């Protein structure tokens, strides 16, 4: 089964991935993705009926601790990396009209 990735699909994936591709990039990405999905389809040869999806190899359980602060106040250090900051906060473009 050959996977043909339509322009609409690429558009949709672009929205999910929050990526804006040029037309040329989109074309190349669609071809790449089709080829990879063809390859992924190999998995359908395997009968996995009744096999539980395994997300982790070890049993994963919640790790809980008492709700007490253990880290210091490193707000200023963390904000040093912000592209824009003001009065101890991250600055982002206006989000409501």
């Amino acid at each position, binding site marked *: 089964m050959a996977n043909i990735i339509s322009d609409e*699909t690429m558009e*949709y*994936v*672009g929205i*999910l*991935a*929050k*990526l*804006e*591709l040029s037309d040329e*990039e989109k074309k190349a*990405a669609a071809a*790449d*993705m089709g*080829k*990879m*999905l063809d*390859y*992924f*389809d*190999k*998995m*359908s*040869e*395997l009968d*996995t009926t009744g*096999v*539980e*999806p*395994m*997300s*982790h*190899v*070890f049993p*994963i359980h*919640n*790790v809980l*601790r008492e709700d007490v602060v253990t880290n210091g106040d*490193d707000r200023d*250090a*963390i904000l*040093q*990396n*912000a*592209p*824009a900051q003001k009065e101890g906060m*991250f600055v*982002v*473009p*206006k*989000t409501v009209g």
Partner: protein
Amino acid sequence: MDLLTMTATQLAAAIKEKKVTVSEAVQAVLAQIEKTEALYHCYITVDKEKALERAKEVQKKIDAGELSGPLAGVPVAIKDNLCTEGLLTTCGSKMLGNFVPAYSAQAVKNLEEAGAVLIGKTNMDEFAMGSTTETSFFGVTKNPVNPEYVPGGSSGGSAAAVAAGECFFALGSDTGGSIRQPASFCGVVGMKPTYGTVSRYGLVAYASSLDQIGPLCKDVTDCATILEVLATHDEKDSTSLNRNDTDFTAALVEDVKGMKIGIPKDYFGEGLDPEVKAAILKAAEVLQEKGAIVEEFDLSLTEYAVPAYYTIATAEASSNLERFDGVKYGYRTPDYLGLHNMYKKTRSEGFGAEVKRRIMLGSFVLSSGYYDAYYLKALRVKALIKKAFDEAFAKYDVILGPVAPTTAPKLGESLSDPLKMYLGDIYTISVNLAGLPAMSIPCGKDEKGLPIGLQLIGDCYKEKNLIRAAYTYERAVAADVCANTEADGNGKGEV
């Protein structure tokens, strides 16, 4: 003895015996960097001043008897996806080109507490996505064995730095072979421990269920020693294991009598270079001569590991890399119209082609309508692969095979065909899917003089089996070389 030919543990011993100072060791490494770095480009950042300063501090502590461990005073290089407080951590990406972490990764802290001296941050494929270190935003790293070839990846800078004597050992991360494959290509030792053995706190995530930190180093003794320092339980990583069997150096024993070693026939089929195959089978013979019981078996499912791996890895990557949005750290596009446009432009300009390719693919396999067919299917295939390994380890202590189908490719030959590049991971990725420990040790060279890596795979928690087999092999080969050198009478045998 030339300082740079010493292993990490030999150096620490020499420092302890006051034959060498920490400053001398650091200066030797910095001089080597000065000499060869322009050609190899192992590092993204070299922190010369801080390293020299730290050398003095560590020396004082050693002199005062406060530091006496087997890595005290040893210069180390850290892959640039491990956070280092106050030191640029780029992940090989324009996206994090200006990121200076406010904290250090737990693995880095463990090394610092043991007295290792951080020299700098090594080059890598962007966000650890690649097998050649060619997708780094900061340029390619060249293989010190032959600079026309790639060092492998994604921990290519770390492997190359060890091979070039630009550090005594390095840390890497392994999501699908990113420690073992560059170790193999550069002729050094590398290990990916059991998932959860080393804390991932402070490791910039690529595919969290597969990522694991481990050492790249000069020999098996160093490997066991470093791993012993790295392996601690960490509450800050919810997948961190609480192990009480991390005395890995206890397994540095030259004895494989009765050890059962399985060679998966599936790993010796089409696509495997005949020279690599011959070297691996010869290594198996060496272990057999030392008393191991070696036999072939069918592992099965090998051809399904690559599609399952790339489905899971890209899915997790698409989710993990959502955090790079130009708000909290890293790159932000200079021109934008509103919030969503800022996100999109920042990400489109900040990520390179391979990262974008994997985020798109990952977003697709997680999208509604395809989630069951791809993502859940891959998790089911993963369960079957794990089961196949469980069955194998019911019969064998160690699985032995190649690390990669070929030796290092030439620079510039891999990126044009991603699928072909991904297939080069066929022998390493199953290990990550099943959470197993595995190591790469040098086992000869091909006709071009490029190193070949032997892969030893163990069951979960069984690093000691790998260390014992690897150590026995290493000693046997060294003894063999010595014997041949004496027979030649020229004293110039290659070790």
